[in-house]
């Protein structure tokens, strides 16, 4: 597992599981992207936005940021998977109330960067991301599901 690389971006911590350069174009809203700023390369989805609205022009996006207004709001997990399932290979960032104990699930759903609003202890994060060797189900990460390990 790649060690998360913490980048300081002007006060806010950005944890990245990617090695490419941080995309520096500001993210526009979904409405703006669909209507006006059609050249944008970064979009921010609110929890209730329909991720599928991005699919027709997914190829032009380098970054999609998905907002978690509270850690209890799990809609962003589905948004992330929908984008990965459609082949999105750019940076998928979880932003907002992102807590260390949610990160492993987020990673499985395809997130590869995190902008938590409160700092995350790197030791706790490392332990949390490497806790489980295997997973029961196939998801949007590269993990091979246990049933596949059992049956080849």
């Amino acid at each position, binding site marked *: 597992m790649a060690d998360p690389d913490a980048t300081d971006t002007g006060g806010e911590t950005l944890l990245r599981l990617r090695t490419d350069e941080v995309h520096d174009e500001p993210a526009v809203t979904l409405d703006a992207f669909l209507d006006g700023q059609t050249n944008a390369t970064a979009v921010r989805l609110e929890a209730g936005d329909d991720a599928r609205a991005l699919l027709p022009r997914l190829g032009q996006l380098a970054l999609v940021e998905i907002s978690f207004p509270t*850690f*209890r*709001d*799990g*809609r962003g*997990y*589905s*948004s992330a*998977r929908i984008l990965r*399932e459609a082949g999105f290979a750019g940076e998928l960032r979880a932003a907002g109330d992102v*807590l260390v*104990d*949610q990160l*492993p*699930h*987020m990673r*499985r*759903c395809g997130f590869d960067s995190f902008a938590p609003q409160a700092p995350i*202890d790197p030791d*706790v994060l490392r*332990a*949390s991301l490497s*806790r*489980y*060797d*295997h*997973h*029961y*189900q*196939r*998801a949007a990460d590269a993990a091979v*599901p*246990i*049933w*596949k*390990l*059992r*049956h080849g």
Partner: protein
Amino acid sequence: MYKYDEYDQSMVDARVEEFRDQVQRRLAGQMTEDQFKPLRLMNGLYLQLHAYMLRVAVPYGTLDSRQMRMLAHVARKYDRGYGHFTTRQNIQFNWIKLADTPDILAELATVEMHAIQTSGNCIRNISSDQFAGAAADEVTDPRPWAELLRQWSTFHPEFTYLPRKFKIAVIAAPEDRAAMRLHDIGIELTERDGRLGAKIFVGGGMGRTPMISHEIRDFIGADDLLSYLEACLRVYNRYGRRDNIYKARIKILLHEIGADEYRRQVEEEFVAVKALGLDPPAAELERITAMFAPPPLTAEPVELDRSDPDFAVWLDQNVRPHKQPGHAIVTISLKLIGGIPGDASADQIDVMADLAERYSADELRVTHAQNIVLPHVAQADLPAIWQALTETGLAEANLDLISDIIACPGLDYCALANARSIPVAQKIATRFADLGRQRELGELKLKISGCINACGHHHAGHIGILGVDRKGTENFQLLLGGSGAEDVSLGKITGPGFSEDGVVDAIERVTDKYLEVRESGERFLDTYRRVGMEPFKEAIYG
């Protein structure tokens, strides 16, 4: 019975360590209670009125004697010597210390048990038919499918922060012994053209807005089942309401957009999801099914000596035919007159474990009516089993009778309660203690909830009782005509509520009326459905 392999074991072991770490961070003040709460809930740990309560999963209600003994051990060592079996086939311990929980989970893990997802807004323990593998009317044993779903739903990364809790039941018989139609998703296994598959029902539930589920798919093959469920859950995760906790269950989504629109969205999602290869190969269901192979049952049928009337009554009331001639299914009642429905002492749990090991192919089941089943008993052993149960106070012959009451913990334990459920249950059972009288009344399912959240399934009771708060005093509403079985229906409120003693009197007037107007062969529920509410209302309120 399912046996863990190294992967299953490593999952629960890792979970214990994860939770140990989370508890330590909480105790060290590195996490707020608000942040800790969903984490502990996903491990079945609730904060109740007086202490923490730990809910341990009994997947699809099946366990062996070793696991049962572990529950007795936990009750003795970490609780006050009791366990409480629940309506979702789990067990709860009501007097737990937070600091002990990692050790309890570690002990449970040594016998392939856990508390994973017994609470929280995730997919809960999968429930099933307590007679699975023993009933003559099943098309297949539903438990291998339930185990497949257990694994699929365990730490599901997308569905761990759903709008609300999510309950799934799997059955495989026309007789519904698991209240399948009152689950968020109900699965009925059926056969079509020689192939096994599932009929899918969505949107049932109790709570403050009870609803019966809708049939969403009449057949989905085994090889598509998990994809289909992913689609069902994804539509809910995206569009279920999150603005109001009381409108967040999937039943409300179906109610608001309609079953047809929900089905359309699921089918659309299913097309997308099916391409992802989420379904395990047939070999995985076969691997699991092999572990549920029927035990070798070779006993010959016997003619039992019925000269002891107590034994004869118990045989008639608590023993059901097994699909294998010469065998029987025994239900051990945890509804002792004057006791707490679903409670068992550590010693009683040990006795039941011993009986299972000796007489029931080492298997026990927990029922959603909060009783325990010995599923594979030779007829010839019934006298010895009854004798042992009698000695430990577990031979109550009241299965499906008025004193076989489902009751939630209520105000004695639960912080949300409006009223006490347990004392009402005790008073009703005591009023109707005479077994002859109970048997005269026949099948009568009575269910009590201490508040509108309906953990005691009052909507599904032939007679239901709901505790409410009326100007600061406990008040009880009476409902008639509900059913959680294949003839599913929701009970209706009779009228103004009663005091604790008043509701017991009202029930007696209802049962008297029933005896007066019933036609031959009618259960209470049948009579109610034929004559309607009016005659009962008159009897109650005059």
